[in-house]
């Protein structure tokens, strides 16, 4: 079972949170803070598993995370999940994001949280749903196509938002995540 999925950046700002068990909003924020605190002080070359914090989990739960450039992807799972398997799943998820957004970077996650959620929904549903990247990307694309065919997010609105952008004092700089395709060699057979 996967209890929660958190994505936050190097400063602990949440970019996506998904709890498969109910927590009140303030508790959710505490969990994010606590998890960030636990994860952020770890070097990049230490192991990617942590015994859960006090708020989420208990002895049966583990935090399994990966750090990509500016983002932390943290999965809170119980002992029925394979640790290395989940690490690989995170990799699959990030690679899927990379395909869907074409060179994904933190900004994509910031501005398209909804889309990231939709992609995640094809990967995890409380338990691992799909691990085949092509299948995931295929389903996401089909759904996007369907959305387009409904034509409700009309192009006119996009044009307007482009106009609105002109007034903005500062366009956010593009922060690249860098090479996301770092495959852990030991996991490649998956």
């Amino acid at each position: 079972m996967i209890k929660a999925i958190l994505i936050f950046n190097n400063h602990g700002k949440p970019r996506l949170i998904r709890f498969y068990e109910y927590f009140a909003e303030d508790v959710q924020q505490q969990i994010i803070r606590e998890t960030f605190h636990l994860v952020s002080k770890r070097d990049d070359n230490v192991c990617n598993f942590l015994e859960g914090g006090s708020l989420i989990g208990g002895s049966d739960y583990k935090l399994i995370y990966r750090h990509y450039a500016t983002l932390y992807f943290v999965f809170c799972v119980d002992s029925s999940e394979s640790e290395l398997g989940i690490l690989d799943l995170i990799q699959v998820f990030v690679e899927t994001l990379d395909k869907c957004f074409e060179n994904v970077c933190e900004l994509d996650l910031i501005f398209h949280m909804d889309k990231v959620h939709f992609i995640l929904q094809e990967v995890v549903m409380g338990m691992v749903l799909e691990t085949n990247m092509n299948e995931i990307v295929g389903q996401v694309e089909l759904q996007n196509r369907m959305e387009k065919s409904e034509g409700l997010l009309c192009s006119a609105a996009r044009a307007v938002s482009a106009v609105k952008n002109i007034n903005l004092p500062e366009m956010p700089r593009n922060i690249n995540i860098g090479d996301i395709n770092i495959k852990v060699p030991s996991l490649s057979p998956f």
Partner: protein
Amino acid sequence: MALKIVKGSIDRMFDKNLQDLVRGIRNHKEDEAKYISTCIDEIKQELKQDNIAVKSNAVCKLTYLQMLGYDVSWAAFNIVEVMSSSKFTYKRIGYLAASQCFHESTDVIMLTTNQIRKDLSSPNQYDTGVALTGLSCFVTPDLARDLANDIMTLMSHTKPYIRKKAVLIMYKVFLKYPESLRPAFPRMKEKLEDPDPGVQSAAVNVICELARRNPKNYLSLAPLFFKLMTSSTNNWVLIKIIKLFGALTPLEPRLGKKLIEPLTNLIHSTSAMSLLYECVNTVIAVLISLSSGMPNHSASIQLCVQKLRILIEDSDQNLKYLGLLAMSKILKTHPKSVQSHKDLILQCLDDKDESIRLRALDLLYGMVSKKNLMEIVKKLMLHVDKAEGTTYRDELLTKIIDICSQSNYQYITNFEWYISILVELTRLEGTRHGHLIASQMLDVAIRVKAIRAFAVAQMATLLDNAHLLTGNTQHSGICEVLYAAAWICGEFSEHLEDPMATLEAMLRPKVATLPGHIQAVYVQNAAKLFSTVLCGLEGAPADSKVAQETSQLLIDRLPVFVQSDNLEVQERASCILQLVKYIQKLQQKDVEVAEEVTALFAGELNPVAPKAQKKVPVPEGLDLDAWINEPLSGSESEDEGRKTKGKAVFAKEDSRHTKPRYTEVDEKELAKRREVRKAEQANNPFYIKASPSSQKVYQEAVGVEHIPVVQIDLSVPLKVPGMPMSDQYVKLEEERREKNKAVRKKDKKKRREKGRQRRGDSGPESEEDITPAHMVDIVTEEMPENALPSDDDDKDPNDPHKALNIDLDKPLADSEKKLPVRTHRPDEVLKSPIEDEEGLEVTSEPKKKSGKEKKDKERKKGKEKKNKRKRKQEEGEDLMEAGSEEPVQSKVTNDVAAQPPASTPEASDLDFWLSNAPVPSDPQEAAAVPDAPPASTPEAASGVAVVVPDSEPEETKSSKHKKKKEKDKKKKHHHHHHSDRAREESVQNGTVEDEEPLPPMSNYALLAENSYIKMVCDIQGNLHDGSQVVVSVIFENKCDSFIKSMEFNVMDSLNSKLQRPEGAGPHDSLTVPFHLPPGISNEARFIFSVQSIVMPQKLKGTLTFIVKTEDSSTHEKLDFKLHFTCTSYLITTPCYSDAYAKLLESGDLKGSSLKLEGINQPFHHLLARICFHHHFSVVERIDSCASMYSRSIQGHHVCLLVKTADQTVSIDAKCDEPGLLRNVLDEIKLTFSQC
């Protein structure tokens, strides 16, 4: 109007969308909260509009704000609105928002039921998908109950995309609505073999998750999972299955044996580390479960340890971590094999990664032995010094103490060393664990008598240097140590060299800054020391001056404590102060007081086991929960008021009251009171009495004589002004061991005389033959005399998974096939599965049946496919259950008859699959073997039918007991056992009175036999496929040689063909998938396809095999004839009387009849035989008349009416296929002519 619309859409263009919101927040870094609150106001406006596009945009923004921690539950209704939009674009946004913020107490969820149902059945698969995804986050018990049927249907959806989601969400549904588990499970099981890998993986996921919580209910799936494991190539699926096996093996060791080989192969072959790791883990679990019975698995252990070592040595920190984790599991059962890797683990202690260091520490805990304890602890102490960060240091400290104190200080050979370690640990600054150290000091000093002198000396030093400990940080936890030090010095003051000095140290003014409870101990123990000092001085008149000085010292120093704001300190101090003043008066009159003062503190405290209080049995007739006086309503607050008042009064007057009372009491009175108390205690069952061994006469001081003498090596300076160095002990210990070794050599010659210090050794000489330096008799902890032995495994009663502890092997009752019909919420009282089932079975069942017969038939078909095996196995359990219940079924009930009546040898598929036991040669006994195990295994496998969630440990114990008994019985009285079963069976068949037991029966018939091998077989129709029959053949090796390469071949007829793998020619033989060592039997199954089932058939076949002896091997063959009777095409199918009546009325069936004469067996035997051998079930029985039913694999109905009178049995039969019927009747006739 038109203008309005245009205006609306232009407005919409300038609404903020999600991107604008994010951008805005980023541009308002300084006043983010303010900006967001204006945004929320805007959103509220947007939500008020009718335009769904605007609404969904607003909801989308809310989802983002929710992530930032804003409560958006106020918009729940709007979210539902967006969810119910017909457009996928909006629907998706709505469901996303719902899944982020809905939960069980969101009340609008009630409104969503119909919307969700609509979405689930939408023709658009993505609408359905979105709804399923959303449900996975916010499903409530109500939703689960209302939608379970819809989701169950989706499990068979044509699109795999929907199937896999539906399968996965069923787990949540089960959790919220446990009643759905049994009806849905057959379909879930079906999905294990779904053609789509995603669906299969989802089903494996769900079943593994279910099985992990209640493994015993899923044991019967083991063969299926085994098949998946050996055939699947999907690592995700493999990992889950292997993990599941890890949970199952503890319940069924035979499974473990079967697993070892394929797992070992996987370990060797896989390149995926994750899979390798899980394999190793499961092998470990297997080895643990086998640890008692299987000596020859050292190879597997070695393999595991060796693979783990590779993981630990890997540069990847993740693998290192997992390697250590798995290593700690091996450690529990095979410590030896891990200990050889001590170097590696100590190395991990230096790792830069804290998680890895902690894992390594865990491992060390199990690796210590008498030999290496000192060395390991020394290493750890070095790490303590180096460790930065208090968390890790505290972790180290607790680990050191854990390691040393584990299993009753088993590994400590030298307690002086341990005390020194404890004293060294007190030097840690800022540790939170002062309390832990203190309790260790106390524990050791109390329980290890021999060490007291040394401990007291060390504690005296500690007290003397108390300022070093407390320093400025009087709040640091370490001063707890002083509590222990003071108590030890006081209690065992007879060991003090200079009690006077210690007394002085304890009464220093600085003590008053310590925490109250420590001061209290100081004061009390100062009094004890005082008595010791007096005792030491008296007798020598010259010293009376010193004695008086001591009294004066107390009188001078105690007033500080009398003024303490701590009640306890104050009370004790004032008491003792008065006492000392009184004594001083006596001293001035030259009265000898020492003895009387000592009597104040005479007697010894015994350590009491931590659980002692819990173990005091509640005497009969005492109800602890009953009110003594019914509480008056509203009196509580009043009471409290009175209490607090009383307290205040007490606190004020306390000191004045106690003073006179205490001084008045003289020694005689005290002694008298003590006697009275003792007598009272002796009669009081609740008083924990001292064990006889420690019941010493007081006044005798402490039994010094019988304490083994500790030889303190004088090379160790006892009173180092600083602190002791434990390192010295390490060196000394080595020397001592050397010496001991030498001594032991000599010992062999003159062992008797050299029994120095052997007396009182607590345990047998340890592994390494190291004699402890102190012959320590560790005083064991006391327990009340009639303590109840019990293991307190307190399971969390709130665990939602408990509700899922439901037996799945039991066939579905008719009423269960469909989920309970929805009722209005208030009516629904959550019933326990048992109640539910029983209630429905008795009342509603028969009526329902007639109404939806058609439906049922279809469903039955599907259900039975899945259930065939289980049902058979189930019988064992049913019987057991029936045995324990009273056979009160006084009238014929349909539901009982519906249970498949006769037991077949297939009863224990699992057992066959698992066992390698030889099959007895007599076919009658052949039945006994497969039959007998259900007594043990299915019970273990699936628990007793539906296990009530809060089954007591007592119960499980008794069932274990039963199991054992059952096994014994099996060994001794096969037949007796059988008859028991048979009788129970008869009850199942709806019989009325006590009837004679049935003789044992078997369907396994001898197929062929020669001097090498014997084959028995059973032929059953295949539930899965109407044109197939399954032939189960048991091969038994009768000779002393190894039989291998068995090949099974049959000459096909036009009507019946052996199914061969694709690509094989029509005359190719099938390889039997196992070898047979001498005396072993095993079962193989062959599938035949048949076209017509009207006629019985015989097929000729040959088995060829190679008999391999030590020096040669011969090729042998054995011919046989397979007899497909018409009976073997029949399948036991329950039928209800009304359906049965309808069937007969329909007029489609053609009749035939049969008369049997000279049958002198009881009617129920007769019925049981027909049921057993010919796969019928009893529909109804009235006196000596019974109706029976069966169905062929191709769906022909066969109905019998059996009547008996005066040794004559007449059978009227009806069937829609007269040829089949005739043959079946002939076979029945044959059966009875044979017996």
